[in-house]
């Protein structure tokens, strides 16, 4: 069509913008209603970006105010003394506690969550797997403060026996020694966090295991593999990256959990050699428990520690999402 009309009517420079104009007309973006609606929806998208940027900017600003006054090294000081003149505070203990409690949570939660995901996709009777998935969702719906209350009043008293065992059989490692204090330690926090991040890891892993090509599993079965061998040779290799990103999403949750840690842990500003001894702290827990009596400067210092937490969770979540996004491209799961 273009070939017949071009030589007679339209000179080349005019015909160039016309496709885009036609496209715009076809999309209807010229009508006022459309323009307003597009503006509104694009505006709210931009607003989300602005909020993210504002979080980063304002936290950094207030954090800078606090850190510039800090007499100690913000990263390595083992103290949180914002009232002193000059103030001395640092995040070493908090960073250690946050990492340790999250690692314990991951060590407990990831294998169990993967097993439950396998249970739902490959083991449970079809009739059961729906209701069970719902029960797992209920675990996710329970508010974290209720977990905290349950952890502090029910879980802690019941862990005495387990602590005695760990001390008896694994005490020689040094990190699992117990001196008989109340079990309000990093280990208990890790157990509670594990329960709380179980649902998210389970749900994402389950979605990944569902996408394993039926052909791979049937091929393995046809070769005489048992169900476990099918899982080991077909399901796990396919789902590995998905499980990793699911675990990182769970890790992001564990890092930022506040109330459950604040109720269960009995905090102190020192690093305990044994995981079973009370003491230590996490970023979020420290903010919640120190906030009440903090002066304005103290709040700025807490904001500084919150900024570190923000950056860490941003990196962990970003990495998890990047892995998921890369997966989508080659698995064909985005259809």
């Amino acid at each position, binding site marked *: 069509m273009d070939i017949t009309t071009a030589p007679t009517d339209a000179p080349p420079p005019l015909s160039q913008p016309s496709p885009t104009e036609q496209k715009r007309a076809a999309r209807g973006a010229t009508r006022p209603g459309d323009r307003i609606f597009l503006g509104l*929806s694009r505006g709210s998208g931009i607003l989300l970006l602005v909020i993210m940027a504002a979080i980063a900017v304002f936290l950094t600003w207030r954090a800078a105010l606090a850190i510039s006054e800090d007499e100690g090294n913000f990263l390595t000081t083992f103290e949180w003394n914002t009232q002193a003149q000059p103030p001395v505070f640092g995040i070493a203990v908090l960073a250690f506690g946050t990492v340790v409690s999250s690692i314990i949570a991951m060590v407990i939660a990831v294998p169990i969550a993967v097993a439950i995901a396998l249970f739902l996709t490959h083991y449970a009777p079809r009739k059961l797997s729906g209701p069970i998935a719902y029960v797992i969702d209920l675990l996710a719906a329970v508010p974290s403060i209720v977990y905290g209350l349950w952890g502090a009043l029910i879980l802690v008293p019941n862990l*005495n026996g387990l602590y005695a065992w760990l001390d008896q059989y694994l005490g020689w490692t040094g990190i699992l020694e117990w001196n008989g204090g109340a079990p309000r330690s990093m280990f208990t926090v890790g157990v509670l966090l594990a329960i709380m991040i179980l649902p998210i890891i389970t749900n994402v892993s389950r979605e990944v295991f569902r996408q394993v090509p039926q052909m791979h599993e049937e091929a393995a079965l046809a070769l005489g593999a048992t*169900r476990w061998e099918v899982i080991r040779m077909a399901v796990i290799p396919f789902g590995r990256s998905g499980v990793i990103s699911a675990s990182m999403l769970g890790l992001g949750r564990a890092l930022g959990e506040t109330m459950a840690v604040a109720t269960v842990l009995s905090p102190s500003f020192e690093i305990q050699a044994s995981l079973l001894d009370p003491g230590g702290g996490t970023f979020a827990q420290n903010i919640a428990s120190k906030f009440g009596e903090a002066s304005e400067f103290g709040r700025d210092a807490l904001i500084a520690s919150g900024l570190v937490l923000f950056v860490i969770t941003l990196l962990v979540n970003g990495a998890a999402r990047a892995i998921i996004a890369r997966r989508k491209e080659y698995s064909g799961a985005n259809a």
Partner: protein
Amino acid sequence: MSHAVVTDKRPSSLRGAQLPKWSPWAIAAGSLAVAVGIGLAAGLHSRIQWGLIAALLFIAGTFGIAARVEGKRQAKDRVATSLVWVAFLIAVVPLVSLIWVTVQRGMKVLDGYFLTHSMGLVADSEPGGGIYHAILGSLEQVGLATVIAAPIGVLTAIYLVEYGRGNLARAVTFFVDVMTGIPSIVAGLFILSLMLIFDMQPFGFAGSLALAILMMPVVVRSTEEMLKLVPNELREASLALGVPKWRTILKVVLPTSIGGITTGIMLAVARIAGETAPVLLLVWGNPFINANPFEGAQASLPLYIYQQYANSAGSGAAYDRAWAASLTLIAFVMILNLLARGIARWKAPKTGR
């Protein structure tokens, strides 16, 4: 020896020897009984220990018996099966315990009086008082947060699905994902930094803003999924009739997916209703009834639970109130969840399948 016995028994079968179907149950019951026996004999008080012994016995027993009768490969398979079952039970135990304890202890003080009175003149360590002020505060804060977050979230999702191409859309998608992972306390700190700059005292609406930040990405995600389920043919049919795109979205796309969008918003509400950390930083808590979210400290249900636990120095009356408030909160969240799922099923978009 067992091998010989087995081949004698079933000489014509091509399959190897198999344990009967009921054997996992029998092994489970056996190991449970032995674990209880060991627990009683050794005087272990903690049920957690009993459960762990039973789980270990179950797995070891399964492997031992299956390896003897069926061979090593089958034994591994059975161990994997039993491990998976044990993992599932381990996950269910805390949930059951949590719900059981909450209901049992919460029912003690939960009654009409509890729901309609505040903590105004009641000391934290004494019995009496209620959660009226906390329910009021929670409803106002969560309601305002929803009013802010739901339209922004839905519009953003519409932008991403209906218009979004290019770098802006990609950036929004990525940051919505990242925003989902923001710890609630960081959202609280962000609003707190603004309040420090403008020298403001705690008030309910500040909490709403932080909750809205937490709610937006959840709404965007779920709405996006729902809009993607709307068949393209519907859009094309409408556009082919000359209907402008914005009216197509409002009159065709949204009505088709409204059930799913509502579900997503309700689930997001259920999620933020239980958030404590931002409320702790921004709203402070208040034993008296304050119905104005724009001025003065307010209470909120999750915050009430925390303060009853933390400020009462181990008083039984305060713990009872904390459990009763937990029961109220869980009931609220669960009802929202159930309603949301009901709506999702009732109004599911017809996808031609």
